[in-house]
């Protein structure tokens, strides 16, 4: 399982990416991360939902109450324009970091 510091450093990018695809509710985000990574990227829901709250307070995402398919309500999150711009910045940083690591690690680096 991957180091928790790495997870924490990348959680913003992961949440924003998943919300770029479509609006999602909290547990849906947790499930999506779990299923896409085959449980290799385990993040506590406490950290995930708190990160979502933090992103919302920074206006990178917004939320609304939506209807479930069979009654009830859910709090859905959507990415804002600021969020999209911030995600682009994160991706730029991520690519740069990858190049740096590649240059330093050389043959030990695997894509």
């Amino acid at each position, binding site marked *: 399982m991957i180091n*928790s510091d790495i997870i*924490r450093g990348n*959680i913003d990018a992961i949440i924003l990416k998943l919300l770029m695809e479509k609006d999602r*509710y*909290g*547990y849906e985000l*947790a499930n999506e991360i779990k299923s896409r990574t085959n449980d290799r990227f385990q993040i*506590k*829901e*406490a*950290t*995930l*939902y*708190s*990160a*979502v*709250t*933090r992103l*919302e307070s920074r206006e990178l995402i917004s939320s609304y109450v939506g209807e479930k398919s069979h009654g*009830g309500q*859910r*709090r859905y999150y959507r990415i804002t324009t600021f969020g999209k711009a911030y995600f682009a910045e994160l991706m730029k940083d991520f690519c740069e970091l990858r190049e740096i690591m590649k240059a330093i690690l050389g043959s030990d680096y695997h894509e």
Partner: protein
Amino acid sequence: MNKIKKFVSNLLKDYFSEDDKKELIAILTTSLEEKVEDLVEAGTPVDEAIEKSIKEFGSTSDVLDAFSPKDSEYQKKMIRERKHGFLYSILGYFLIIGLALFFNLQFIAFFQHIYWFIVVAIGTLFWPGTMFFRYRIAKK
């Protein structure tokens, strides 16, 4: 579902300001309740779903993980900047008042012995007042 709210409230009891805590508790509780609903819809009994959700949720440090360290750095920077802004506004305020006082007293006969600098002193109070308010918000 009160069990969930109690669990989340207990998790955050010693952290965050009252307003932030209230908001965070509401959001974390909603997310946990949504998980419980999903599990129940998938066939898990309610009590079991609540227990499972609470067990898998994580601890206080997992919550705090989401806010550190980059955010605390950002917050420290913002508090510092607003403190400087507040101090600058106090300096600016006294400079303006000093100038107004000087002109008022220097040409007191011209102004027919009206101490108008008092109006300026009260009127410009909004500046350090606003900056202090912004500083307090950042600190909170």
